[in-house]
C-alpha cells in the first residue's frame, strides 16, 4: 500500500483507497487533469457511501425483501387496476417529503 493509500485509509476514504491505483492509471490514459481525477475519485467515494447507507437502512428496516413494483399483479382484481395510478404515485415518496425527517 502506498503512503497516499495509507493516508486515504486513515481518513476512512475506503472507495478512494480501493480505486486509487486503477483510477490514476485510467486518468493518465485519458489525459484527465488533476482536479478531474480527484473529482472522479470523490464521486466514487460518495457513491460507495450512499450504497453503504442504503444497506444500513435496509438492515435496520427489517424488511428481508427488496421487492419491486414490477412483481405486483395489477390485473389480479379490478380494485388494483382502479387504484393503479394512486399506488404508483405512492412510490415517488412525496408523502415522506411532506413530513419532517
Amino acid at each position, binding site marked *: 500500500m502506498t503512503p497516499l493509500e495509507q493516508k486515504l485509509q486513515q481518513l476512512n476514504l475506503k472507495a478512494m483507497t480501493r480505486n486509487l491505483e486503477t483510477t490514476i492509471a485510467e486518468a493518465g490514459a485519458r489525459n484527465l487533469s488533476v482536479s478531474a481525477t480527484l473529482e472522479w475519485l470523490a464521486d466514487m467515494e460518495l457513491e460507495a457511501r450512499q450504497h453503504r447507507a*442504503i444497506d444500513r*437502512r435496509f438492515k435496520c428496516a427489517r424488511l428481508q425483501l427488496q*421487492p419491486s413494483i*414490477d*412483481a405486483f*399483479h395489477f390485473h389480479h382484481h379490478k380494485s388494483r387496476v382502479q*387504484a393503479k395510478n394512486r399506488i404508483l404515485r405512492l412510490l415517488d415518496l412525496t408523502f415522506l417529503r*411532506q413530513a419532517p425527517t
Partner: protein
Amino acid sequence: MLIGNPGVCKTFLAKINAWKACQANQRILFTTAMDMLNQLLASQVDHSLVRKLKLYTEPTLLLVDELGYLSLDQQTSNLFYQVISTRHIQKRSTVITTNTAFSDWGNILFNTTIATAIADRLVENSEIFLLGGDSLRKAGKNPTSPEEKLNPALVRRRAVR
C-alpha cells in the same frame, strides 16, 4: 392504509414502498402489530417503555403489518394509541396493513372510543387502498408472499452490493 383479505399482497405492497424509501436513505421500520405491541408490553416490565416507544415513533416511515388478526386488550390498545398519536403529532408517515374495515375496529381494539381516536389520526392526510380479490396464496403451498410466488425472479433477496 392497506385494507384487504389475507393473501391480496398488502404486505408486499407495503414492502415495495418501504424499500423505495430505504433507497431514498430514509429511516424505515417494518414490524407486525403484535410484535410491536409485545415488545412495548415487555418494556413496561423493565421500565424501558419510553426508550422502546422511540424505536417505533422515530422512523420516518413505520410499517405496521397484520393489524386485526388478533384483538387487543386495553393495555395493548393504549400502547398502540401512543405510537399512532406520537407519530401523528410528529407528522411522520405510517403504513398499516389490515384485514379489518374501519367499521369493525371497535372489535379489534379495546373499545370504540380508542378505535375512533386511532382511526381519526390515521385517516387524516391518508391514502386508503382497498385491495379486493381472492387470496393469491391459494394456488401456492406456502409462499413468502403471493407476488413472490408468482414472479420470484422479480424479487431480489438481500441483494449484495
